[in-house]
């Protein structure tokens, strides 16, 4: 029973990360109708920027986190401006290819700057605590609480601010939003900033527990795609629900499946579901 609870706890922790990363991705895909293949790599870069600001410069964990999230927001805006906006009027596949270019660029950037060997961010809260029979570190608990706070904050932002409402409107219906006179370019840039910033939050929360490596974004990014497609593009509840679900399935199924094939099942499930329902589990929109 304890082992089961422990696995559930781990599942929720990974699910928190998945949910945040998928959240940022679903917004971008809903807004721009293009798959940002580099989204996982934004997560990776967020982790490294925390290392840079927190450890290399010495701002410490919390201050480093704030600075790295802000810096990633800028990176998001730059990415939208430099890579995607010039391709707005061109065939969609050109933007797909540019996304692959960004992915290669970001990964080799991290490789060049920080090297291929794993880096460790000092864990600010390594103390262990025990709740309900589960032994865990405070940092792991922080991942879960941080994710809940971020999701709640983002929800409030979407529902209570005009900018948030605008983003949601564009995500759900780009043409309709354009007709009502919304500046879609500004919304796109803001969405990229939020998307990259939230990915950095997820990376900052999780990276004191695991090593940083330039390739860590690739698989996570793909899992985010799986979640977004299953949850429906542009759907925030779908991304959150799907994120926690995937985390739990992996944690609980991990004992029965071999570790090497764990990812195969997630991607296999995606192909299978798309075969049966080509528009995703909850989605209606074709992109």
């Amino acid at each position, binding site marked *: 029973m304890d082992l089961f609870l422990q696995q559930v706890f781990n599942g929720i922790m990974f699910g928190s990360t998945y949910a945040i990363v998928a959240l940022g991705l679903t917004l971008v895909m809903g807004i721009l109708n293009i798959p940002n293949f580099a989204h996982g790599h934004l997560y990776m870069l967020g982790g490294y920027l925390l290392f840079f600001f927190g450890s290399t410069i010495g701002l410490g964990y919390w201050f480093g986190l704030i600075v790295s999230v802000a810096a990633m927001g800028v990176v998001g805006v730059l990415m939208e401006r430099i890579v995607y906006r*010039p391709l707005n009027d061109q065939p969609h596949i050109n933007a797909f290819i540019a996304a692959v*270019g960004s992915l290669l660029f970001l990964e080799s950037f991290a490789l060049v700057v920080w090297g291929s060997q794993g880096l460790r961010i000092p864990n600010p809260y390594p103390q262990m605590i025990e709740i309900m029979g589960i032994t865990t570190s405070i940092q792991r608990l922080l991942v879960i609480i941080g994710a809940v706070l971020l999701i709640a904050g983002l929800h409030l932002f979407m529902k209570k601010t005009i900018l948030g409402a605008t983003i949601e409107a564009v995500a759900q219906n780009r043409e309709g939003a354009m007709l009502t006179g919304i500046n879609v370019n500004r919304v796109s840039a803001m969405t990229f900033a939020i998307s990259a910033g939230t990915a950095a939050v997820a990376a900052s929360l999780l990276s004191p527990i695991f090593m940083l490596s330039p390739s860590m974004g690739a698989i996570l990014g793909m899992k985010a795609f799986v979640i977004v497609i299953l949850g429906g593009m542009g759907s925030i509840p779908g991304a959150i629900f799907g994120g926690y679900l995937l985390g739990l399935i992996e944690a609980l199924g991990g004992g029965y499946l071999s570790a090497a094939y764990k990812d195969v099942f997630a991607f296999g499930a995606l192909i299978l579901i*798309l075969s049966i329902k080509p528009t995703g589990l909850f989605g209606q929109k074709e992109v």
Partner: protein
Amino acid sequence: MFTKPIHTKLLYLAILAAALLLPWYVPDAYIFQIVTMSILYAVAASGMNLILGFTGQVTLAHGAFFGMGAYGVAIMTKAGIIFWLALPVSALIAAFIGLLIGLPTLRTRGAYFAIVTLCFGVIVWIVSGNWVELTGGHNGIFGIPRPSPIPVPFFGQIEFFSQTSMYYLSLAVLLLVLFALYRLVYSVFGLTFMAVRNNEPLADSVGINTYATKLISFVAGNFIAGLAGGMYAAIMGAVSPSAAGYMLTFNFLIFVILGGMATLPGPVVGAFAIPVLMEFMQFLDDYRMLIFGALLIVVIIYFPMGLVGGLRRLNQKVAARRQQKVSESGHASR
């Protein structure tokens, strides 16, 4: 209808002659190996170009289908099946698995297909590294035999033990693939690929089965990838998961885009120019992918037709200016 100007034909003939005589003026075994690999990459990239460039479907599993061909030949020839049977069978397996993946996913438009193929590429890569009984795991398979000699009446037999003979075999495969693609693409049938890429609803409305067109393109492109992979296994004598990896897909993508997508010479130019460039850029080491990643973005934004497309446009401009000059001088003399 689809003819090329005479000077372009002459250029192609010169390149062909240079390629045929290459073993005489490139004695360096290492460079020779790079050129042979480039031929195979050109074959695979041409297959990707059929799907991506001409039909407009972003496939990100091309390395996986290349790997299926490579592992297919490796496994079959190790099991005693002759290469000349193993190669087409491996390519057919790649094509068939492509059909299975394409059937459900090509009904959807755009992003879904790209994402699913990316995921499928990763699956194949993971499986190739972990299914030890079949693929040898991370060590891969080595000691793959060379193709058996072909008996030729009155002549003896053609043997494939030397690097030179494998070079000519690869060149023959490339020429055959380009010839087939040339026939397919420059025809009314080929126009339907471009119709699907350009305007799918209109293609539908003029009686083109767009779904079947995409499937044919995807299956044919994967067959070509499998063919290239099978040749790779025979030449290298060994395969490892990197021959099925998604980095390979990205390399093919770079060849196609920088060389010029939706042009037949584009992927060939890319597959030859870029590995050579990378050799010269050896000192840059890790920076190479940084540069090519950035280059991919710049080219797709400003020169979406790549190097070959850019040269063609330049050629047209020169031709137009010359014509203008001729007509001007004609007016002057009057």
